[in-house]
């Protein structure tokens, strides 16, 4: 083999080796780096565009178990819209007529929407207190369960109560009941919910657990 051809072969081999190393490096690194760069470059845009539904459950027992869920609303909305199974049909839940025949939720909602802010329902019972009020376009429901039936209490201790607070924007409730009488349009409700930047939706506090469900633009919990 002539010397020039040998040199050419060695040069080609070196070039190919360098190309291999370069491509492997690019392949192994490029995707994460590109993804990280994309994430880093547009924190504001993604934060402002996406709403996240957060669920936090903290057990108060000795183990102190914690469960955290962070779900992008768009993911929930799209997946919900794609499911057609049983009573769930593309974001619409069919409910049993028997349970709603006697109550016209739409009429109640319409009446509440057109009314002034104030406390609409107050029930004070031996086992539970319930308050429903409208404030600033929100429907606020506060329940104090004093029965203690949901938990195992020490007989020597006073009954433990459970506090439940639910905050629902009226337009979300409106969207929820925007379908037929026997339907709940969960998809539409999520769409409207996603227009809010930050919203405390549900808190439940009892002797065993704290549950909090809220919406904001952060990918993580506080």
């Amino acid at each position, binding site marked *: 083999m002539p010397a020039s051809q040998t040199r050419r*072969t060695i040069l080609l081999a070196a070039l190919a080796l360098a*190309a291999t190393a370069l491509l492997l490096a690019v392949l192994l690194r490029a995707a994460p780096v590109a993804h990280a760069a994309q994430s880093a470059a547009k924190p504001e845009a993604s934060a402002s565009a996406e709403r996240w539904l957060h669920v936090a459950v903290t057990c108060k027992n000795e183990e102190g178990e914690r469960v955290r869920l962070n779900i992008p609303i*768009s*993911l929930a909305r799209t997946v919900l819209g794609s499911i057609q*199974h049983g009573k769930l049909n593309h974001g619409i839940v069919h409910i049993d007529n028997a349970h709603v025949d006697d109550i016209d939720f739409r009429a109640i909602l319409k009446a509440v929407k057109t009314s002034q802010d104030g406390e609409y329902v107050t029930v004070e019972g031996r086992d539970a207190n319930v308050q429903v009020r409208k404030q600033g376009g929100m429907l606020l429901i506060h329940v104090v369960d004093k029965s203690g039936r949901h938990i195992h209490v020490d007989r020597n201790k006073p009954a433990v109560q459970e506090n439940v607070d639910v905050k629902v924007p009226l337009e979300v409730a409106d969207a929820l009941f925007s379908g037929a009488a026997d339907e709940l349009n969960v998809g539409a409700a999520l769409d409207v919910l996603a227009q809010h930047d930050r919203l405390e939706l549900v808190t439940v506090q009892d002797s065993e657990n704290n549950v909090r469900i809220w919406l904001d633009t952060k990918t993580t919990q506080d």
Partner: protein
Amino acid sequence: MIGKILLGMTLASVVVMKDGIIEVNVQEKHDGGSHVHLYVPATLATWGVHMAPEERLREHLRHSREHLAVARIALHELEKVPDALLVEVESPTEHVRVETRHGSFVVDVDDAGETVHVAVPIRAARKVIEDLEAQAPAS
């Protein structure tokens, strides 16, 4: 000649690595426990769908089409999501994390018996689901 071989290896690497890497790491904690750590090109998973016996695959997928569609849509949405912790369960004996990280769907489990780490490129997983969906007979 060497150059051609290396060029061929380069192209093969490009084809094999283009969908990313599936990582599986299982470490048993007891004495003498096994440790399995695998890096598998995700492309092999997509090839696997095409290499599986068609009739048997169709039989297995007969009632899965709608579930595959939901999985495909979910993965497509996950591709758009920035890196985030989706699920975390913590207790004194167990720690589970499900997150998206650098375009992969990552599951970490750390309990008394073992630690498990699985990372699957979301895009590759979606491609596998799409291929399976294409093979699934309409129900």
